[in-house]
Each structure stands twice: as structure tokens, then as C-alpha cells.
């Protein structure tokens, strides 16, 4: 399996996105913005279409367009405080509108299946370098602003009073989300990007650990989901996106079962 260059590329790319997705997902989930991944993945379809139209690298064009939409979401957050989920619907509608128009008009010819479901066959060395570039920068920025991001997600008003540059960090985070989505869709596909962002964190939250430990468990679960997904997709000759999504849900169910078992045991010991 590893003798094929496309599998080597797939594993190399997965190594980075498996770490980046839960790191970004942690802050999104705790902000109650889990569906942002879904919205922006559709925006990335628009970005890829525009990139193909302009003859540019799809990862780069996707990053630019998704960043733009991500910044718009952050800006609209102030205007739709009560109905925050409406913002995602607005942006989703606009981006999917652009993508469908470009793809259906015949201006752009793309392999829609690989974009929707993810593909390990179409991953190139150039994709890997873009993934490496965005991953390293994004992970460094999260590491650099980790305390600020944690503070803002926990208590945004408190962070303003404490002197954090909340506005700047929120916009920076919006761009980091865009980078994560843009580099991940090659492997997992547009339709299941949310599972990679939210489900490892949904599983790690069940363990009721500290912020840092929750994040590390999220990364561990993400590695299990993605690597097992890629290996299985190779053997089954199926799109990796779907298998990764199924693996994420199975892992979440295992964690929930484990949690239930531990609680039952504790209860029994107390009763005895």
C-alpha cells in the first residue's frame, strides 16, 4: 500500500490535517459553531471553482475565498447575536450559489465526486506542500495565541476587559478556520468535513478532562479516525470521506459506552 506515491501523499497530508482539524474544531465546538465547518466547506467549493476558472491552484484559491467568507461570518456575528445560526445559512446559500452557477454553466470542468467525497487518488505532491505550509503556520498561531483563544471562548467579555485584542484574534481565528477547511477537503471531501472538525472533540468532551487534555484526546481520536479511514478506503476502494465519517461516529459511540460503563461501575461500588 505504501509503495504507491498517492498513498504516501495521502498519509503525509493526513498527518497534518488530523492534528489541525480537532485543534480548530475545539474552539468552534465550544463556541457553538460546529456547523461553521459545513458552511465553509461549501464556500471552498466556490473557491475551487473560481480557482479552476482562473487557472490557479485550487487549495490557494479555496483558501482565499473561504477566508473571505469566514471573515464575513465573524463580522456578521455582531449583527445576528440572537440568531447566530442564520449567518451560516446566509453564507452557505451565497457560496453554494456561486459554486453551482460556475459548475453548471460549463465554465469549469471539475471532478465533483472527488470534491464532495474526498479522494486519495487525486492528491498531488503540490497539494502536500500547500497543506504543509498552511498547517505549520496555523498550528504555530494557535500555539502562540492559545491562552487568548481559550479565554475568549470561555468568557469573551472578560477577555476584552483583561486587555486581549479580541477583535483581531477573532478575525485571525476566522482565517485559521478557512485554512483548515481548504487543506482538508482534498482528503475528506466537502460533505464530511464537519465530522473531522467536530466529532473527535465531541468524543473527547465526554471524558470530562481539562481544556488541554480534551484537546490532546481530540487530536488522538482524530488520528485514529483519519488513518483507519484511509487504510480502509484503500482496501474497500471507497471514498475516504465516508469511511472517516463512519469511523468518527463509531469512536464517539465507543467513548460514550466506556463512559456509561465507568459510571455504572462507580454507582455499583457506592451502593455496595
Amino acid at each position, binding site marked *: 500500500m505504501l509503495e504507491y506515491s498517492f498513498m504516501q501523499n495521502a498519509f503525509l497530508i493526513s498527518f497534518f490535517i488530523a492534528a489541525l482539524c480537532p485543534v480548530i474544531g475545539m474552539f468552534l465546538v465550544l463556541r457553538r459553531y460546529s456547523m461553521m465547518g459545513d458552511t465553509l466547506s461549501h464556500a471552498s467549493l466556490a473557491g475551487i471553482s473560481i480557482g479552476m476558472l482562473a487557472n490557479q491552484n485550487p487549495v490557494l484559491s479555496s483558501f482565499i475565498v473561504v477566508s473571505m467568507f469566514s471573515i464575513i461570518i465573524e463580522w456578521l456575528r455582531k449583527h445576528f447575536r440572537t440568531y447566530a445560526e442564520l449567518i451560516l445559512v446566509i453564507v452557505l446559500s451565497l457560496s453554494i450559489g456561486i459554486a453551482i452557477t460556475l459548475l453548471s454553466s460549463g465554465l469549469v470542468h471539475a471532478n465533483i465526486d472527488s470534491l464532495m467525497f474526498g479522494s486519495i487518488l487525486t492528491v498531488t505532491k503540490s497539494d502536500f506542500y500547500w497543506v504543509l505550509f498552511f498547517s505549520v503556520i496555523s498550528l504555530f498561531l494557535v500555539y502562540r495565541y492559545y491562552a487568548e483563544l*481559550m479565554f475568549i471562548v470561555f468568557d469573551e467579555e*472578560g477577555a476584552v476587559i*483583561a486587555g486581549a485584542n479580541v477583535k483581531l484574534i477573532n478575525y485571525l481565528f476566522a482565517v485559521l478556520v478557512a485554512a483548515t477547511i481548504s487543506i482538508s477537503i482534498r482528503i475528506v471531501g466537502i460533505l464530511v468535513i464537519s465530522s473531522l472538525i467536530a466529532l473527535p472533540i465531541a468524543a473527547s468532551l465526554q471524558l470530562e478532562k481539562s481544556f488541554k487534555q480534551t484537546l490532546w484526546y481530540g487530536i488522538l481520536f482524530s488520528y485514529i479516525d483519519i488513518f483507519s479511514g484511509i487504510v480502509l478506503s484503500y482496501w474497500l476502494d471507497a471514498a475516504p470521506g465516508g469511511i472517516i465519517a463512519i469511523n468518527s461516529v463509531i469512536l464517539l459511540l465507543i467513548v460514550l459506552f466506556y463512559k456509561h460503563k465507568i459510571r455504572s461501575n462507580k454507582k455499583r461500588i457506592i451502593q455496595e
Partner: protein
Amino acid sequence: MLKIDHLYFSYNNVKNLLTDINFTLNDGEYISIIGSNGSGKSTLIRLILKLIEPTDGTINNTFKNMAYVPQRFNQLNIHFPITVREVLASYKKVRHNGCQDISEVLNLLNLKEKEQTLIGQLSGGQCQKVFIARALLGNPDLLVLDEPSNGIDVKSRDEIYELLANLNKSKKMSIICVEHNLQAAVKNSTLLYHIKKGHGHMCLPERYAQEYIKNDLGDIKC
């Protein structure tokens, strides 16, 4: 010193929530802001903290280091995965410098053994103490609190008021506290600021207590 002059505030310029608010907080004073629900107490605090802008009037603040203890700790997501130490450490990192040692502050509030506990696993009183610890970490010269005893047990409430009185008297820390606990307000404050229907009146705590009893919870003018 904090000086508020002819302060007005309204949402979308519709109706004045605060009308012609005037008061001065000198260094080392402890002012309790009292009034019924919806009278504008928390709005006044948000104006002082510069979270919102006044419609008219000025706030001159010469305090260099403000800290805030929010009321909404009891509205927090109790499943948020963050420990007591992480709450304090993130604050310390954001403030960059001039902060106390985390262990010292935890000892002051008898929270040392809860250091690694998740915030959602604490009682209401312990949770409030964490927010006070976070505020004290930055050595503030002005501490702003929004109903610190709201929804907590009597023992924790007494400990918190004892700590506030001690900080005010021994460390000369200036305090502004939105208060619904009139007993604590009268006992600890240097001055009371009573807001009713958007209008405010400053009065001495003893005078307020007398008027309060005389008027049988009614209209109080100091």
C-alpha cells in the same frame, strides 16, 4: 478616581435607561450600586468598564488597573472543559505582566485544593471565588463586581464579603459593587448609589438604612 458626569444611556436612542448619572468614586472608596431589577445597575457597570458607549456625558477614569467579576458565572456552560488553574493561567497570560502568583491567590481564597478541578464541578460559591481570584490576580486598583452573592450559599457569601471588606480596608482597593444584598451593602460600603427608573442618588449607608426602614421598602430619597 472615577468621575461620572451627566451620563445618559439609551439603547438605539429610544428610551433613556440611565438619565443624568453623576457620581465620584475616590481612591480607596467602596460604592455599592443598588436598585430594583431593570433599573440600569448592570448597564452602569458596563459603561464604566467601557463595554458600551454612553449616549451622552463623560466618564473620567484615572484607575490604571480595573478588574471585573461578572454576575453571569451561574449562566456559564457548566460542561465547559476548563480547570480552575486554566482559568487563572489564561488570564495571567493575557495580562502579560504585573500579575500575582496563581498559588498565592488560590491560597487567599481557600481554593488551592480545587486547582485542578473543572469549573463545572464547583459549587456556586466556589465558582464565584474563582472569578474573584481571577480578578485579584492582576493586582487591580479598582475592582468591579456584579452581584457577587447572587445564588451562592451563606458561608461562601460571608467569606466573599469579609474578603472584599478586607481588600478595601487593608489594601485600600477601590470597589464598585452592584448589589441586591442590602445588608451587605450597608455594612461594607463607604457610599451607596441608589438607581431608580434610570435616575441615581448617592447616599450614606446609615442614612439609607434608616430611610429604608422608615419607608417600609418604599420610595427612598437620600
